[in-house]
Each structure stands twice: as C-alpha cells, then as structure tokens.
C-alpha cells in the first residue's frame, strides 16, 4: 500500500471538569471513581461548540500545517461521530464549506460509535489509492453524551481530529490496515434518545478487549511485526484503564503508550479518542518511527493501522497552530453548575 497521512490536526476544548466535582453532585466518591477510571479530568465543549465547530477547528489545524495542500484537491470529506448536531443534514458539508473544499467533492457523515473516524480513514485511503481524487479528509469528532449520574458522565468528553489522506506527499505511510467486526450490542442509543445505554461489564471483556486484541493480533500477523518493532502504540481509550491493560496484554510498555494516552487528561472523546492520541504522537514523531494504532467502536468493531513516519514529516509545519500537548494543557476548570449549563442540562424555558 502506498497511501497514508498527508497532514493531521486535532482539537480539544479548553474547559475541564474533575471527577470529584461530578461525584459531589451525585453523592459518589468522584475522586475514587476518577482513580478507578484513570481519568483526572474530562474536556467539556463550550456553549457554542459542537461536532461541526470542533471538526472545522481540527480540519483547519490540519491545513495550517500543510499550506501546500489546495483544499480544492480534497475530493472527499467524511466526518465520523455519534453526536452529529443534525439527524438529517450532514456535518461534512459544513466542514467542506468552512475549509473551502466545496463544491466539487463528495461528503458524508459516518457513525460507528467510537470508530467512525478511523472507518473514514480507511475509506479515504481506498479512494485515494484508486485515484478517484488526490486527497480525502477523515474526521473523528464527538461531544459525547452521558446521562446525569451515570458512570459514563465521569468520562464522556469532547474532542476532534482531522486527517488528510493521500499518496503524496505523505508524512506517514499506512503500511497495513485491518478491521475486526462483529454484531455485539455493548453500547447503543436509539433515534430520539438523549443518552446512550450500555451493558455494564459486558462492555469490557466480550466487547472492547475481544475486538481490540483480535484486531491487534490480526495486524501483527498481516504486518509481520512484534510489539518491539514499534516506537508508539495507541488504542481507543474509553478510560485510562482499558487501553493500558490491552496494550500490556499485547506486549507494549508504558513508554510506547504514554504519548498517545490523552484520556487521563481529557476523558473519552469517543470518535476523536484514538485520533487525537495519534495527533499527539505525530506532533513529536521522527522520520522512520513506527506507530501501532487500534481503535474500537461499540456495536462492535476495531480498525487497526500499522504506520511508519516518513521523511515528509520534516517538511510539515508542525509548529503552525497549537500542538495536542498545548491544547491538553491549556485548561479552564469549571464546576458542575457551569457544566450543566454548557451541556444544556438546565431547562431554560418551556416549549
């Protein structure tokens, strides 16, 4: 395969809430909850932020790093999310207009729980490899929902990442990609429901771990690699516990996983999760370094990527705009009352 990442850009809102402050409202030891999840804070979208604005931020950050990319060469934009602001009317068209890629392009919104963004990477890879167009843009973004008081409320956060995929000039080649998909109902939200339901402990072993580990082992086999062939490893990160356990089980160490493990500081950004982790890695990766990435989406499936950073990374203006680390560290903590206001949980008027 000779397609890969041409540029990338991430975005995380500045607002944070600590598990302690969430627990205080529900009579739960939030600090212990946070420790159990290995999450110190979660990002919260501002009152004017949604998946569209965050996708645009991420897309613009990607283009800022690569001024050589003519947005008109982006022939497809796919935005993966489970919190698209509209049920009918695409997010992708607004992103396309905002980055001036419209009108000669194809666009669509994707949904596959937390892995719709990586599915978009695979689609755009295929289409650029077949020369349907020069570049495709794959976005993963979420302002994830959680019912007040539910265990999810301690982790469900907001973030986005956009990847420009193409054949030339690549900053990282995607050597192999594999997927592992089954019908496993571990987490779902029906049309019209405000908050998702989940299967409690069923979301662990038979869902996350089965798919991530199966996909990872498939990827090792396909790529003919072992854990020590990689400089970095990043996994879908619904909390700070699952990806570390999965990574260790596969034979990766903390040093390989640390850079991409943003969940501890920003929570679970769902469709954005593995992609912002990948952005953080690409922010510091050197030519020749290798990255192992396996995402996960409930429902359920995993997409795996074996990535090698190319010499092209040196030509990318990685200092343009803020790095992921800068965004993760630029924080403004809010309390639950402000959180409730921002997340529109306070009913302002009838009707």
């Amino acid at each position: 395969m000779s397609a890969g990442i041409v540029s990338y850009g991430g975005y995380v809102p500045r607002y944070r809430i600590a598990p302690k402050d969430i627990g205080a409202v529900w009579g739960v030891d939030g600090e212990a909850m946070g420790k159990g999840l290995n999450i110190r804070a979660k990002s919260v979208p501002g009152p004017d932020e949604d998946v569209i604005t965050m996708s645009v931020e991420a897309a613009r950050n990607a283009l800022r790093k690569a001024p050589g990319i003519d947005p008109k060469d982006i022939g497809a934009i796919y935005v993966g999310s489970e919190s698209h602001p509209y049920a009918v009317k695409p997010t992708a068209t607004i992103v396309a207009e905002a980055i001036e890629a419209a009108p000669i392009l194809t666009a669509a919104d994707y949904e596959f729980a937390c892995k719709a963004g990586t599915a978009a990477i695979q689609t755009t890879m295929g289409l650029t490899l077949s020369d349907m167009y020069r570049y495709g843009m794959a976005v993963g973004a979420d302002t994830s929902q959680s019912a007040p008081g539910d265990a999810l409320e301690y982790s469900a956060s907001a973030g986005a990442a956009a990847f420009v995929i193409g054949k030339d000039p690549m900053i990282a080649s995607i050597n192999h990609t594999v997927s592992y998909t089954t019908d496993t109902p571990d987490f779902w939200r029906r049309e019209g429901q405000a908050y998702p339901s989940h299967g409690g402990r069923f979301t662990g072993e038979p869902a996350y771990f089965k798919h991530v580990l199966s996909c990872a082992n498939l990827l090792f086999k396909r790529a003919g690699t072992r854990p020590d062939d990689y400089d970095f490893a990043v996994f879908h990160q619904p909390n700070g516990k699952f990806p570390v356990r999965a990574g260790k089980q596969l034979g990766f160490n903390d040093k390989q996983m640390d850079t991409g493990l943003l969940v501890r500081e920003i929570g679970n950004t769902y469709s954005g999760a593995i992609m912002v982790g990948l952005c953080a890695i690409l922010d510091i990766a050197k030519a020749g370094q290798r990255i192992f990435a396996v995402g996960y989406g409930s429902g359920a499936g995993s997409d795996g990527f074996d990535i090698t950073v190319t010499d092209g990374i040196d030509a990318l203006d990685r200092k343009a705009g803020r790095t992921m680390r800068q965004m993760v560290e630029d924080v403004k903590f809010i309390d639950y009352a402000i959180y409730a206001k921002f997340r529109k949980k306070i009913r302002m008027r009838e009707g």
Partner: protein
Amino acid sequence: MRGVSVIGVGETQFGELWDKSFRDLGIEAGLKAIQDAKIAAENVDALYVGNMSAGKFIDQEHVAALVADYAGLADQHLPTVRVEGGGACGAIAIHQAAMSIASGVYDIVVVGGAEKMTDVGDVEAMQILSSTTDQEWESVFGATFAGLHAMMARRHMFEHGTTREQLAAVAVKNHRHGAMNPSAQFQKEITADMVLQAPRVAEPLGLFDCAPLSDGAAALVLCAKEKARKFTDTPIDLVGTGHASDFIAVHDRRDLTTIDATVIAGKRALHAARKTPHDVKVAEVHDNFTISEIMAIEDLRFVPKGKGGFATEDGETALNARISVNTSGGLKARGYPVGATGVAQAVEIVRQLRGEAGKRQVSGAELGLTHTLGGTGGTAVVHLYARGD
C-alpha cells in the same frame, strides 16, 4: 426408607460466561455428572433442576424440560421438575430428588442447578435477586439485599463485638481457597486491606464483602444406596437432610443476628445423621455476604453464638484448621449463580469426601455439610454427606 448416595458430580466453570447460554451450562454440568457416574441416559429415571429466576434473567420458564431436551434426553420422556426456593433452590432440588429415591419411586435421579445472570445489567440483576425478599414489606421500601445484610452485620457488631476486620477475614480466606479451585470465578488471593478499602455497598459491607453475579451450573447423580456400588467404588451417602423455613422478612424475625431457619435445618440434618456439629470437618456454607458465613458457622453450632468473627479471624475455619469452611471459595470466590449454588456446594463436598479436591483437599474428611439459604434466611437447607460404607 432407602438410603441415597451420590454416584456422579459435574460442574461448569463459574464466572461471567458471556459466550454460554443457560441451556449450554445446564447441559455441560449434567453431562459431566452423568459421565462421572458412568451411567447411560436410559438409567436416568428423573431430572430435578434448581433454578431461581430464569424467567426474569433470560425470559425462559419451563427450564427442566428444556435442559432434558437439549441434553438429548427428549426421547427418554423423563419426568422433569424445576424447583424454586430463592438461593436455596439447588439444595431443595437435592432434597426432593433424594426423597423420590428414598420412597422407592425412582432409582437414579439427576439433580442440576443453574443460573445465567449476566444477560441482564447489574441493576436489573440486583432487582431480580431482591425478589427473594418480601417485595411488599422490604424491597418496595428500598431495602436491598445488601442493605438487609448490612443491618444484620451492624447488629452483630453491636451485640457480639464483631469487627469489620473479622468480616474481611471471611473474604480473604474464601479467596485463598478459591485460588486453589480451577472452577472458581475468582482464583486470586486478596488482602484484608483490599476488602476494607473497597467501595462501600451498604455500610459496613463493601464490594469484597459481597458474592458476585455469576453464570454457572452444577449437577449430581443420585442413586439408591443399595444400587450405588454397581456404578462406583466411591459412593458418597446423603446421611442427613434438614429443610426449614422462617419469616421471609428480616424485620419479622426473632433475632437479627441468628438465622433460625439455619438453626432448625442444621439440627434436623444432624439428628437424622446421628451426628454432632463437632463431627463435621468440612462445610460449604452460604456466604452470599461475609456476615452470612459468620452467622452460619454460629447457627450450625460450629462455634458459640457471637464467636464466628473471632473464630474466622483466628483461622479456625481455614483449610485443614479446626473445621474447613468453604474450601471451594464459597459463594464469594467460587461464584454465586443462584440456582446452581446448593448443587455446587454438594459437588465440592463429594470431591472432598472422595479425596479428589486437589490442592484444597481436607485431610481425613469423613463427614461434610452443605448449608444453603433462600432469600435473607426465609429458607435454609442443610445436607450431610459421608463416605459410603
């Protein structure tokens, strides 16, 4: 009445068995027991199945015929019976099956116990479990299973000086035993600190004071004693049985720190076997909460009233100590698939008496006891088993 012996035992792995259904579990345990007994399908006269709430857990009633069917026994047209009695249903099924043999109606009966609890979410599972308490006078007012046991624990602490550390000692011991049981849900040792620091479920009980939600099944083949030697060289005799009920709601009971049903069932079983509590060297008791084991060993008169916590803390109930309690890991570590429990306890005692318990073998075990509760103690069943003469 004729004597009754156990000639075969079988059980599944216990735990969160996501890829196994209720019927898979029932069949696996049943077939293992039949193989162990070296009998053929034609030898089986009847099937008794202990099951608490398949109707709520998996939307399936009529489970006894279902298990017989899927075990390939439909063409035998066996009489099949499902027995319900809260957490004690497996133990009651053994009692009913044994009486059917003792009366001379049947010669060989398979007794199974099974529960599939993880197809529903945690909250729903708790609601289903609490349906074995008094719904109108307990659950409706918000009393949970753990909450009711927490009340018993608090009263026990108040009256007898039992400590949280002593409660923790039950969990630590049972996990240590479970670590030696390849079928156990938790085969990992824990420390007293882990128990004491765990999140509270209902003060003073924490997460590690409670038995888990589990999937699993167990089965026995019972046979008329006079015919048992035809099938095995090591028959284990059911030498005494006591089955008693009591007020189903905790607040109606005479004493919060004694389960009268256990006292009566224990006396009945020991009387039938002409034994005393001191003759019992190995016992599987109903430790759905740590406090339950402390009350059980007192109510069965292994230790004086009020001394259960102290005895546990002093190691008197550990493997090969004065009396080996819950060598399987108990409900706490082996797991608590409700309907399977009474039968799984019997499987453990039979293995101990046969000398087949491996690393957790109690040396010189001659007489073993099982104690199973329904609800918070509205039902208690005690069985005594001895090596066949």
